[in-house]
């Protein structure tokens, strides 16, 4: 789950990291009040869960409270990359001497969290790492042993930073590392952490992302930030009608799992495929043989007849889909006969002939004899494990689109 900047700053503040005296509001008049309280030049920042805010005009500088109100009114109306802003953050314009970067992410290969620090703050860390590798310090830390500040100090020193900056940044990075673990984050970034002209250090922006799997035990934090359950995991992804239909079929029955996606797919080959790895393999096999899938799907964990039927119906009701290919890698949990019954039921309920509609059925494995008997009865072309995933996909392409490429 991603957090808005105003929430990320609150998380940072709770961890004892210095932040500016900012204010968040959804109202332009209140933006003026906040600017008055701050009493000096301010920055008005759109609160959206998308990048490129500066370029889109979502960040503006104001010299007076009236100007702050006018900018806030504009920004509140400004949609960025299809996202409406949640509100605006009114931030004192900082008198910056130097900007630094600090962040914590997971390193899947090392299986540990990784701290990153750079004295080239304010820009994308990946760009810095590529162009100025000597300006980036890195260090893993344990999820088991206690954290100690020297670990953060080493990372900062490795970026070539010494003096007061090293001393001031060490406890800040240490707190960021701790909050990363404590709050089940997968990204915790302060960019920039700024050294001001008066010598103080303060977080001027923050990015936080919590692992969805960790949300269950982070309810207290989520509640304290005022995030309601209705916001879910805040996926910015907008599901298609097909995806919503498949999701509803999946949610209606706890047996097995089905998933369907069609954003990015616009072909005519309806795919009823599984399981996780099998679906990836089969989608490639269809495409590499010149086929154009209408969708992606995954069947797993022994779904009911109703679920397999629901998925097949959703695929068959997509525009341009006349036929489906029902294919999986060898199954040991999912039952072949149940999937066969489900897809045949879908054809019949939509008034279609299963033999015409199901271009190929290739699911070998558990209960295959029973499954093949049913398929025989309806005259559906099927094959067992002696026909590879590639060949089965090729037959589907040939039957639905003409010759395989």
């Amino acid at each position, binding site marked *: 789950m991603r957090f808005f900047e105003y929430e990320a700053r609150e998380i940072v503040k709770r961890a004892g990291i210095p932040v500016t005296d900012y204010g968040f509001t959804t109202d332009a008049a209140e933006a003026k009040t906040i600017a008055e309280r701050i009493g000096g030049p301010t920055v008005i920042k759109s609160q959206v869960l998308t990048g490129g805010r500066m370029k889109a005009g979502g960040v503006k500088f104001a010299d007076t409270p009236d100007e702050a109100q006018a900018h806030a009114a504009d920004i509140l109306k400004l949609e960025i990359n299809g996202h409406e802003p949640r509100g605006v953050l009114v931030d004192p314009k900082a008198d910056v001497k130097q900007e630094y970067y600090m962040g914590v992410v997971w390193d899947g290969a090392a299986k540990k969290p990784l701290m990153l620090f750079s004295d080239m703050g304010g820009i994308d860390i990946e760009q810095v790492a590529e162009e100025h590798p000597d300006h980036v310090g890195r260090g893993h830390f344990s999820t088991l042993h206690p954290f100690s500040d020297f670990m953060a100090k080493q990372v900062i020193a490795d970026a070539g930073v010494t003096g007061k900056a090293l001393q001031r940044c060490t406890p800040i990075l240490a707190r960021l590392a701790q909050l990363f673990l404590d709050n089940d984050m997968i990204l915790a970034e302060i960019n920039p952490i700024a050294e001001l002209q008066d010598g103080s250090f303060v977080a001027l922006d923050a990015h936080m992302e919590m692992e969805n799997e960790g949300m269950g035990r982070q309810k207290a934090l989520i509640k304290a930030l005022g995030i309601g359950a209705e916001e879910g995991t805040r996926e910015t992804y907008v599901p298609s009608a097909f995806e919503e239909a498949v999701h509803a079929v999946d949610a209606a029955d706890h047996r097995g799992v089905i998933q369907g996606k069609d954003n990015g797919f616009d072909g005519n080959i309806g795919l009823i495929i599984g399981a996780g790895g*099998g679906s990836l393999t089969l989608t490639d096999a269809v495409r590499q043989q010149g086929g154009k899938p209408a969708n992606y799907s995954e069947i797993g964990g022994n779904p009911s007849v109703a679920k397999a039927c629901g998925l097949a119906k959703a695929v068959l009701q997509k525009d341009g889909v006349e036929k489906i290919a029902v294919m999986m890698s060898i199954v040991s949990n999912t039952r072949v006969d149940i999937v066969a019954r489900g897809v045949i039921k879908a054809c019949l309920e939509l008034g279609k002939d299963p033999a015409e509609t199901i271009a190929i059925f290739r699911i070998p494995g558990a209960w295959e004899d029973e499954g093949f008997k049913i398929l025989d009865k309806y005259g559906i072309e099927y094959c067992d494990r002696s026909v590879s995933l590639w060949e089965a996909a090729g037959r589907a392409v040939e039957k639905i689109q003409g010759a395989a490429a």
Partner: protein
Amino acid sequence: MSILINKDTTFIIQGITGREAINLTRECLDYGSKIVGGVTPGRKGREVHGVPVFDTIAQLVEHNGGVVPDGSVVTVPPAGTKDAVFEALYAGIKTIVIVTERIPRRDVAAMVELADLNGARIIGPNCLGLIVPGVAKMGGIGGPAKNAAQAYQPGNVGVMSRSGGMTTEISSTLTAAGLGVSTAVSIGGDAIIGSTYAELMPYFEADEQTQAIVIYTEPGGRMEAQLAAWVKENNSRLPIIAFMAGKFMDDDEMQGMSFGHAGTIVEGKEDSATEKIARLEEAGIPVVERIDEIPALVKQKIAERSAA
């Protein structure tokens, strides 16, 4: 021979009274595995297919005359997985298969770190375990004994796969071609896993029966780069052949989307299928386009090695 488990390996099932665990217990017993007990807190005194159930591993060990089992299959819900694995590790269990999916990364990292300190090995999470054809299986891999026997015959190819289902598809292809499988490991599809390809290579290297390795891989993560580096640094006697699924995810319209497994999300250029294929091939690991091309290439590579 085999890696990690053999005909004498004893193991337990943590969370044995769950629906999936009961099936898994039946399958493993039928296949010839030695399950010496199960643990579900509050269910002491029950039996699952004749396997005694205990509240704690300590009780189970005491019941077994102080003998610590070799392994554990962990099937408890995600919120309790870390504690269950810690219980197994503190008891001295050395081979742990974690079936559970959707475990927070912080917990996975902590389990892996403690396992490393204890000289133990974790397979998974979010995996189907491992199988030594004709000998034993630890986990749901291959399904019921009858189905497992059909797809997995003993042979000389080691299989490692991020997808449980594809472990069986590939092994079945090897079996049909008369090559068979030495040990097949479903390593799991998450962003952090207990045992990566590179970390299991030394085991296969030490197993005389194994003459070649086949891996199934997907976009996301840096595990293939790690394997490529391992191959370059170690003069392995084993030819490796890879299959990469999910090439379609490299398309622009698929950016930022995750398909198949939690770990497939592409977070940088290095995790893309194209980049991974380049890395593997650079290290001398051929990446086949189709699963059905694997047996012929395995035979060719084995012949080349024995001729050299």
